[in-house]
């Protein structure tokens, strides 16, 4: 999916827990997610903290989308 959408000329950010697989399939902008059973949240946190975590992930992904990349890049800082 990531590759097909990019082929159509639209940049894609892949939010993904298993970064090595994302690298193998060829995503260009990769944002590491939390865990495989819950990529975009963490049930161990209370709702307020979890919302903050989710917002941070989305913001990081949007930032990645607006960043020029030269080949595969993992946004893990």
């Amino acid at each position, binding site marked *: 999916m990531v590759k097909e959408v990019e082929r159509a000329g639209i940049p894609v950010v892949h939010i993904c827990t298993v970064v090595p697989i994302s690298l*193998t399939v060829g995503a260009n902008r990769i944002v590491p997610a939390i865990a495989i059973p819950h990529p975009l949240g963490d049930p161990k946190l209370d709702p307020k903290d979890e919302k903050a975590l989710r917002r941070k992930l989305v913001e990081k992904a949007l930032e990645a989308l607006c960043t020029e990349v030269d080949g595969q890049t993992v946004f893990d800082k």
Partner: protein
Amino acid sequence: MRLELGYVLINDVQFGEVTKIEKGVLFVNKSELINLIKEDEHLKSVDVEIARPGESVRITPVKDVIEPRVKLEGEGGIFPGVLSKVQTVGSGKTNVLKGCAVVTTGKIVGFQEGIIDMTGPGADYTPFSKLNNVVLVCEPIDGLKQHDHERAIRFAGLKATQYLAEAAIDIEADTVEVYETLPLLQGINAYPDLPKVAYVLMLQSQGLMHDTYVYGVDAKQIVPTVLYPTELMDGAIISGNCVSACDKNTTYHHLNNPVIHDLFKQHGKEINFVGVIITNENVYLADKERSSDWAAKIAEFMGLDGVIVSQEGFGNPDTDLIMNCKKIEAKGIKTVIITDEYAGRDGASQSLADADKAADAVVTGGNANEVIVLPPMDKVIGTLDYSDIIAGGFDGSLSKDGTITVEIQAITGATNEMGFNKMSVTGF
């Protein structure tokens, strides 16, 4: 560490007045066994059935298969940290009831348990069709949570094998095999000219009832460590898995790990088999990185020349497999990996979710997506209610006459990634 395994050959299982072994027949006092399992307050009803090789019997949904073993000499007891005290096992003498097993059934997750056919085309795909099986059919009390249900069934199986195995305490074994592994430095010095080889055993530990236990510890919480191979033969590792049936390692697989047995066969001849490194398959990337780093670090620390890596399950554990392979190869240690494939029903899709050039020696247990037609059996132990939704099944899998059309994924042990099956492929 030296272990003598005494194989007490079991040719038949029958119900009888007293639980005992006589001339290769295991007699089971059914009510005594049922009462023992029913001591668990989480179980509403318990029944015991027998399924023999060649009988027209289908067992489903299968959770675990366990071989009865009993410790005669040496420290600790079978299933340490779970049924026995948490002492280090793997030395002394152990009797094995060879030719029979305890099979647990239950609709715990429903879609993640397997099928064992005792005859017909499906029987060829599972090693457990060749055993005399004592099958536990347990119903949980109303409202029992899945995790508690899984635990209750896990313990029911272990307790039943312990009960049956005690019948072999005073029985003289038909054959005896001796397995010995020396402490690392002595072991290396024993065969200085042979390549030093270890086995990297990956344990399913994704959570949500995809769990394995090491001396009673949930494998999610371990960091890679080293075991003597004989520790596994005494039940140091048990399965708590509700995952796809074809490539989960049942407790029977851990007790009879064919990689370990084959490495012992070549030990002192072609290779020097120095030990087992266990590692896990967790769902956080940091855990995957840490565990594969440590597996490689331990392999380097042991001074290995080669390793065999076996996987359990599929999907994201493919990444753990490839990370182990890549990082161990990067230390200058040769690797062979054992996996299976999800290459689509026509076999045309990519087999693994991850890949790397370092993985240039691969053994496969077969393509789990291959479709098979399982004709109806005269008797079903368990229930067919889940045939349409079992992993490998699809809407319409179950026909009215009891025929099941499924991917071999649904058959317990069909594409086992320790190689405890018949399928493989040769490629160049």
